[in-house]
């Protein structure tokens, strides 16, 4: 008994150094290196759970054309250095694609992935200008970037105020790259549409917001757009109440989910809005199937409550898209699947809606975003109710900014 344990122990020790060598029918390896400790912990557990769930599900159904998917998991703690280590390790273990869910890590790994020609998914994180597939051939946002979301929020505001020219929009954001990123879009839109824009930076870690909200109160905005996440919304809403700003003026970036409203109170949070790129809730057939095949059988990768929440669904949708890209790659170019074939597979996605979970996207070698359609949803006390159709607003302007930035990158800046 003890011997056997020792053997397992030794082999795991060995494995951790040598990498897993499990030979099935040519598994397709996907590197999932996430941040379980620092800035992204609010989302990481559900995010990882969704990806693991869907991979299990696909494998149970016989994999992609017989090829199972293997996830190579690890933690990078939002540190560029550890992210690079994890990337190098997984790459060596044969991963052909990566998701990091961390802006700093994505940015640090990006030059390496480009150099190594390894596909890097960057759902909701990383460089927004990576939508330009011509400059970033191996980087795939395949979902609306922050810039697309920012534009859509303005569209929603324009639709809901009397006159956008006289509207006042407050933009409050975490004062580091994640929050600063949409500023160029807002500035460009403010110039074009004529609304008054004022910026309210919140310094890290974002827990001290009292001064910011005093200023917002004085600004008397029609809407407040917020680029922060998780419990920081709580603090924001508490401060809004203090300052007697109605909570329904609050429009958040995608990072707010039902769980985040819990400690503020579901009822009190009524009217909060968010921009979303995927369908949430458990109504869709594919999610029902996941619940049935995995969770009813006790094989779920995490708590059942997480299924259907935003962070879960975002990751789930991404993985559905990746798997579809893998399938197309295998179908068109044959096994074994390589990064390059996956890239071409992803680039041949056409009107793909991830089994009804998002607005259809079409990826081309030039466009790695695929449409950038999002919608605004409002919290009604128990769930998020869509307020608009899938929409990609001001996409000319967004693409202009994308091109400006990617050109800068290309020219070596």
């Amino acid at each position, binding site marked *: 008994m003890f011997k056997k344990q020792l053997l*397992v*122990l030794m*082999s*795991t*020790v060995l*494995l*951790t*150094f040598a990498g897993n060598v499990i030979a099935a029918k040519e598994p397709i390896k996907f590197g999932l290196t996430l941040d*379980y*400790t620092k800035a992204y*912990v609010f989302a*990481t*557990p559900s995010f*990882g759970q969704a990806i693991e769930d869907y991979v299990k599900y696909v494998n149970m159904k016989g994999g992609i054309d017989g090829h199972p998917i293997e996830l190579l*998991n*690890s*933690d990078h*703690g*939002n*540190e*560029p*250095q*550890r992210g*690079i*280590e994890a990337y*190098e*390790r997984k*790459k*060596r273990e044969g991963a052909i694609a990566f998701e990091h869910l961390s802006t*700093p890590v994505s*940015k*640090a790994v*990006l*030059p*390496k992935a480009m*150099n190594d020609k390894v596909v890097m998914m960057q759902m909701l994180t990383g*460089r927004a*200008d990576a939508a330009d597939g011509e400059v970033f051939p191996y980087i795939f946002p395949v979902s609306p970037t922050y810039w697309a979301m920012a534009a859509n929020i303005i569209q929603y505001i324009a639709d809901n105020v009397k006159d956008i020219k006289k509207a006042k929009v407050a933009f409050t954001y975490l*004062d*580091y*790259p994640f929050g*600063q*990123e949409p*500023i*160029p879009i807002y500035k460009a839109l403010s110039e074009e549409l004529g609304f008054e824009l004022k910026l309210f930076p919140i310094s890290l870690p974002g827990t001290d917001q009292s001064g910011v909200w005093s200023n917002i109160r004085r600004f008397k905005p029609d809407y407040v757009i917020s680029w922060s996440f998780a419990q920081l919304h709580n603090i924001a809403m508490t401060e809004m109440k203090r300052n007697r700003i109605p909570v329904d003026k609050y429009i958040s970036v995608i990072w707010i989910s039902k769980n985040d409203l819990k400690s503020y109170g579901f009822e009190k949070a009524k009217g909060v809005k968010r921009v979303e790129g995927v369908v949430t809730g458990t109504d869709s057939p594919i999610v029902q199937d996941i619940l049935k095949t995995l969770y009813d059988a006790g094989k779920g990768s995490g708590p059942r409550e997480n299924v259907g929440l935003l962070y879960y669904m975002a990751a789930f949708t991404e993985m559905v898209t990746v798997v579809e890209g893998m399938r197309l790659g295998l179908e068109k170019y044959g096994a074994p699947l390589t990064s390059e074939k996956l890239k071409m597979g992803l680039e041949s996605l056409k009107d793909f809606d991830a089994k009804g979970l998002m607005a259809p996207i079409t990826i081309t070698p030039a466009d790695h975003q695929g449409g950038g359609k999002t919608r605004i949803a409002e919290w009604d006390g128990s769930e998020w109710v869509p307020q608009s159709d899938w929409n990609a607003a001001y996409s000319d302007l967004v693409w202009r900014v994308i091109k400006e*930035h990617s050109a800068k*990158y290309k020219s*070596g*800046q």
Partner: protein
Amino acid sequence: MFYRQAAIRHTSYDQTKKLYPIPFDKWLVVAVLLVALLAPFAMSGLYLNSYLLPWVIWSTAALSLNLLMGYAGQIHLGYAAVMAIGAYSSVHAMRLGAPFEFALILGGATAMIIGVGFGFTALRVKGLYLAISTLAVQYLVDWVLTHVPAIGGGTQATLQTPTPALLGFEITTDIGRYYLALGWCAVVTIFMLNVKRTGLGRALIAVREKDYAASVLGVNSYYYKLIAFAVSSFFGGVTGAILAFTFFGAVTPEQYSIDISIQILAMVVVGGLGSVLGSFFGAGFILLAPLFLNNMVTGLAEAYDFGVSRSVISHIPLILYGGLIMLFLLFEPLGLAKIYDNIRKYFLVWPFGFSRR
């Protein structure tokens, strides 16, 4: 046995001042150097890029900080900021068209000038105040990097590093980048080894130990503290630039955050204050132990399914840094270097261990 001292007779002062008076030490160093030189050819990209290369770079950083902390006895809680200054200045210099060699030196010089500037502030006061003011410097630099687009790179807060080129040869391969880092590491190492045996090192230690006694020997303690600040900052700046050019390929504020400062501090303390060898040990330990531990705990958790939450696993590096700093300070203030030294001393007289007191 190994470190045989018998039959070694030094016949001149010059010989006793050699870096490695005992032949075994010398051959050990030669062997390590050979391994370091040949490693990239025997090693996969993974080990080269994510273990050996960062180890070499962080050892250099730890060495540079050790000059200030180990020799001059000044705590620096913002060393990553010093490295950031070097990295950003050299990246900007290259983007403006400066050749790589010049950009490196410029990076070091900028870090030195700013470092010494703050040194002037800090050196008027005792260790504690110095520590706190360097912490403040870290915050100031962080702020500048994230709020001055001309320096930090604007919206994306990322600047890609241009391709480094030595004497006109572009360095594009992993091996080339590794040699670049190794070369710089060798320069700093040799300097630090020399410090041990020259008047500079003695003066620094004198100032650290008893500055009043140093002053009656004609040692200007203020001047030597500034020298330590200047040289350490210069080395730190260049190392920061090397880190950006060879490892990250880009500069972002996160690469030089307060956490990194603490990490280097831990390397120095765990490795051994004032020890060259210790800096290598400390950097290796602090850098690689969490990686291995993390991978191992994850592997074990998967094999046994004992459901350690990932969140708990992921806190291990922090616990390790903090715990090790405390344990070493409490039980072996001279760090890993001292432990090595004890072993070495044991073998110096082996098998006649009883001859020692």
